[in-house]
């Protein structure tokens, strides 16, 4: 039987809210159990993907998101939210594997997942 897929919408940025930490642990565990994961970064959520973050060593956000992307997590980032925050629409400011797209791609994710969790502020 095909394993189920988890969809997540995250709307908060890293550091300020605990969401990003919970997100990493939750998604990493879901991957370990064999589930697929698709993520839409919305509003401040796009800040999670920003390259060159240099936080305290116990919160290596870039490495964590990169790790999840390398393990096959699909990341889509809201394009309007990306440009509003002064980041490149090509995705050049984001970790490799994050695609800058829009709400249509979000709607696509919603149609492709078995469970859906929202991480808001």
């Amino acid at each position, binding site marked *: 039987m095909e394993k189920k897929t988890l969809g997540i919408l995250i709307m908060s940025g890293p550091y300020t809210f605990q969401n990003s930490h919970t997100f990493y642990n939750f998604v990493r565990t879901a991957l370990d159990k064999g589930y697929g994961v698709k993520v839409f970064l919305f509003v401040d959520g796009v800040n999670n993907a920003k390259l060159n973050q240099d936080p305290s060593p116990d919160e290596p956000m870039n490495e964590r998101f990169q790790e999840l992307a390398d393990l096959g997590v699909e990341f889509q980032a809201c394009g309007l939210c990306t440009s509003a925050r002064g980041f490149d629409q090509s995705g050049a400011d984001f970790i490799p594997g994050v695609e800058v797209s829009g709400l249509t791609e979000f709607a696509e994710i919603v*149609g492709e997942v078995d469970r859906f969790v929202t991480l808001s502020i």
Partner: protein
Amino acid sequence: MEFTEKKVMILVRSRPFGTIINFEGWRAAVGMFGMDHESFLMFMGDGVYALLKSMDVKHVMMFKNTYESFDGVLHASKRSLEERNISPDELFDGVEILDEDGVAKAFTENEVIITF
């Protein structure tokens, strides 16, 4: 899973204006039509404040119009309105007010619930 058209509830519980989350709910509700999902906009808790017709609609007008042009209906929880002393005639035209049974039915019939 393979892509499937779904019934999607956008559940708006945040207050308007203080954060952008409430407004982004309206936007997401419209976005669901982009892949032919059925979009069900539901306001509960302090989210119902976004249905006051006396509100400045500049942040949501475009989404509201588009949502309604797709025959989308605005739904509000009766209990949330009552707890906030909001009477039906204070709301935008066309808001459908759901009692407890209606709320339970909405959560059952919509296959995905996305919270704003």
